[in-house]
């Protein structure tokens, strides 16, 4: 790394302010003014529109295996989703997913 101290702090400061402005943007500017129904309808899908896309590449091509699909990780992902849907609880999903991951990694390791 060859940046000067000033440059490093400049990067940190701009990232800090920029990230805050991204997060504050709509919440800060719109406040309690009403939004059009079509926008509200679109926004209700935000969580299910962002997270699956964020996770899918990590599940199919994990960085830890150099991008090679890994059965242990894939099984853990499927169990997490199944338990999450079935129990309607994130906590049970996390527990089942992590348990399955370690169990599957162990099983595939001794095989």
């Amino acid at each position, binding site marked *: *790394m060859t*940046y000067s101290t000033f440059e490093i702090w400049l990067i940190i400061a701009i990232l800090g302010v920029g990230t805050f402005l991204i997060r504050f943007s709509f919440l*800060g500017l719109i406040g*309690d003014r009403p939004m059009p129904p079509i926008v509200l309808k679109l926004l209700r*899908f935000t969580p299910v529109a962002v997270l699956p896309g964020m*996770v899918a590449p*990590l599940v199919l091509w994990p*960085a830890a295996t150099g991008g090679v699909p890994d059965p242990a990780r894939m099984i853990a992902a499927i169990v997490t989703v199944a338990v999450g849907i079935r129990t309607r609880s994130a906590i049970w999903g996390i527990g089942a997913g992590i348990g399955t991951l370690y169990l599957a990694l162990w099983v595939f390791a001794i095989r």
Partner: protein
Amino acid sequence: MTTSTVKAPAKSAYWAGVRDGSPFILMAVPFATLFGVVATDAGLTVAQAMGFTVLVIAGAAQFAAVQMMMEDAGIAFVLLAALAVNLRMAMYSASLVPYLGAAPLWKRALVAYLNFDQTYITSVARYEARPEMSVQDRVSYFLGVATPITPLWFIMTLVGIMVGSAIPEAWALDFIVPIMFLAMVSPMLKSLAHVAAAAVSMIVALALVGLPSGTGLLIAAGAAMVTGALVETWIERRKA
């Protein structure tokens, strides 16, 4: 749940948030430690690494920025890449407006500072499940979710800087994040429209995985939102 008395709600909403945010300690502890290790290895001072964690407070973007700084990328590229990774949070910000828009400006600013994947998803799931929550309760709940995660995120970064040794690969830390996110989102798949949105999100994101810094994800998220809204409209029409 029983309807609570007049004065208790805000406080109990806060503690419900603390409870629901606690599982994320599992994620915050190893990743904050890892960031401390990576940042120190990259050559950042203690103050700079802590500055990153406290001011930016966004795991993926912090790692992306430090990674590019290690490669001596131009400053503009470092900034663009890391901010692009965070752009999805503009969608989070917009989707919180119907729930928190009526809160005082300083509270909205505080929520904005703490608005990251875990706090956002957990809170929105609660707001959707309980439409009767007051704005004050919603803010309290959000701050409650952030309470167990945020201080640990700061402290464990410092621990990582001090200890400075990598975490064993056998812990498969890379996969704790996907599991957490999958577990958070699956209970929200409560209609055909939600399932369709999630499917489109995955397919488009996988197809565009080669695009830099999460731009593929933004396109995927946009396409998924439109899909969800269209399917929902279609189902409503068929019922009518």
